[in-house]
């Protein structure tokens, strides 16, 4: 596009605005032209850490020596050397699965994630395994934000500690991040989450995503979901979330421990593309999505995704 003469550029913008329809008209072409450089944003993500601090034990014939938080930290550090302003996110179930959780209650998990520079996480069902009090007790160790938009924490010790969404500014871009969680009833013993009210994640996601995209004019709207990738029945999942909502660009999923070979792209209710990604569990993989924002158009971006595998084996 840089090769286009100036007049043609204007022509190109007009055509593109026309092609993408009504919503894009809200963007002033003048404002768009003021920032003429394309911008790229890297989003790194994990899900379902499950207290995997150390690499898998020697006795595990499939995964012996694989993963490990110190390796995750090193990979992230290396990427940060090239990409200063990236987003690092997690889709929940940080807790439970190794004695590190039984003995230290999640303290080390949060300290490591803070050291790695996580920006934001959402809550999975296992993050309640030490109860609401157990979760609140570890929060001082977490130097990152917690988001969830479909649990009402009013009257519990978590009230005011978890926001429906957070807006991050990276490289002059505005990125809205919100979270949705799975129905805890029947999944988590009631004594551990009692007092939290669950709301339909689809309705809440639609409200929040609209507020972020239309109201707050975010360039990118990301949903951290602990609903699960998809189910045989009609149970709400990332697939349902992607196809039954508007204004979400990216869903970073968890819960089902799904090793997606590549992100799945769905079409949402307003005929826009939504990307869903999930990277298994135990910190064996780190998802990396790089978005390119086209300033002349401001109606589209490219997305490159890569999967950084902390294992030597192809199949897990």
């Amino acid at each position, binding site marked *: 596009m840089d090769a286009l003469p100036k007049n043609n550029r204007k022509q190109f913008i007009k055509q593109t605005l026309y092609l993408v329809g009504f919503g894009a008209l809200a963007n002033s072409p003048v404002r768009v032209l003021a920032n003429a450089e394309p911008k790229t944003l890297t989003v790194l993500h994990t899900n379902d850490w499950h207290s995997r*601090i150390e690499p898998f034990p020697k006795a595990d014939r499939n995964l012996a020596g694989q993963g490990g938080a110190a390796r995750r930290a090193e990979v992230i550090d290396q990427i940060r050397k090239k990409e200063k302003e990236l987003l690092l996110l997690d889709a929940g179930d940080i807790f439970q699965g190794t004695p*590190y959780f039984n003995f230290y209650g999640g303290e080390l998990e949060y300290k490591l994630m803070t050291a790695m520079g996580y920006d934001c996480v959402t809550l999975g069902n296992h993050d309640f*395994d030490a109860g609401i009090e157990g979760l609140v007790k570890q929060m001082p160790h977490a130097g990152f934000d917690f988001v969830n938009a479909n649990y009402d924490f009013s009257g519990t010790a978590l009230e005011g500690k978890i926001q429906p969404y957070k807006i991050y500014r990276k490289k002059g871009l505005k990125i809205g991040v919100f979270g949705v969680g799975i129905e805890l009833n029947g999944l988590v*013993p009631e004594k551990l989450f009692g007092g939290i009210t669950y709301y339909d994640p689809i309705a809440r996601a639609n409200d929040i995503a609209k507020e972020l995209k239309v109201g707050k004019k975010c360039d990118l709207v990301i949903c951290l979901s602990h609903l699960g990738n998809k189910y045989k029945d009609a149970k709400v999942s990332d697939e349902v979330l992607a196809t039954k909502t508007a204004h979400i660009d990216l869903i970073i999923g968890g819960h089902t421990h799904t090793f997606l070979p590549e992100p799945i*792209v769905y079409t949402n209710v307003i005929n826009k593309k939504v990307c869903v990604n999930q990277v298994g569990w135990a910190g064996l993989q780190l998802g990396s999505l790089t978005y390119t924002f086209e300033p002349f158009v*401001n109606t589209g971006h490219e997305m*490159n995704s890569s*999967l950084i595998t902390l294992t*030597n084996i*192809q199949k897990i």
Partner: protein
Amino acid sequence: MQVNYYQSQRVRLLADTLQAENAKAKALIAPYKNKLDSQMNIRIMVAEADFKKDNPEGTLGNMVCDLLMTYAQSQKMPADFCVLNNGGLRIPTLYKGDITVRTVFELMPFENSLVLVKVSGANCAKLFAMIAENDGVPVSGLRMEISEGKAKEIMIQNQAFDPAKDYWILTSDYIANGGDKADALKNPIERKDYPVLLRDILMIEMKKKFYDGETLVPVKDGRITKK
């Protein structure tokens, strides 16, 4: 603002250079790890072969339920049979070789305690229907055949299931509270809660056997079959 993806590609990086460990993170982990290792790396049993989580019947689920029944009998608890859930077993395979305290923690990380519930024959039948729908769950003292999604040929302690009788079922507090679709156990005739974790029972029983010179051999005896 509008979003329109026109390219999506994927690069997979499997470089060995990614295997390096971060020194700062390692230093953060070290004191926690050292303290844990002294308690976790203790051998309490030896597995003669791999134990696997499986449906309708798996050697891992059989072993866990059998050990719980052994414990119940040693404590003179009137357990007729034991039922757990597949979701409660958190490793797919317990590998051949040394079983350490850490192994048992990873197998059963939840703080679930032991419960006995006295359940009517009618509710037992509902439980068996749920087990059949789920393609089998870990059990002990119970045998059944799953045929077209239904529970058939049900035997409890080698006697045919009697729907007119009440039975004592050994399970976890999670399942006794109706977790994992076990609604049939929610309102029992009687319930006894024991202040002991399932994980601790496994360790007690493994240590006992190991002290007696025994090791663990995987058992698959057709307690749940599928047609």
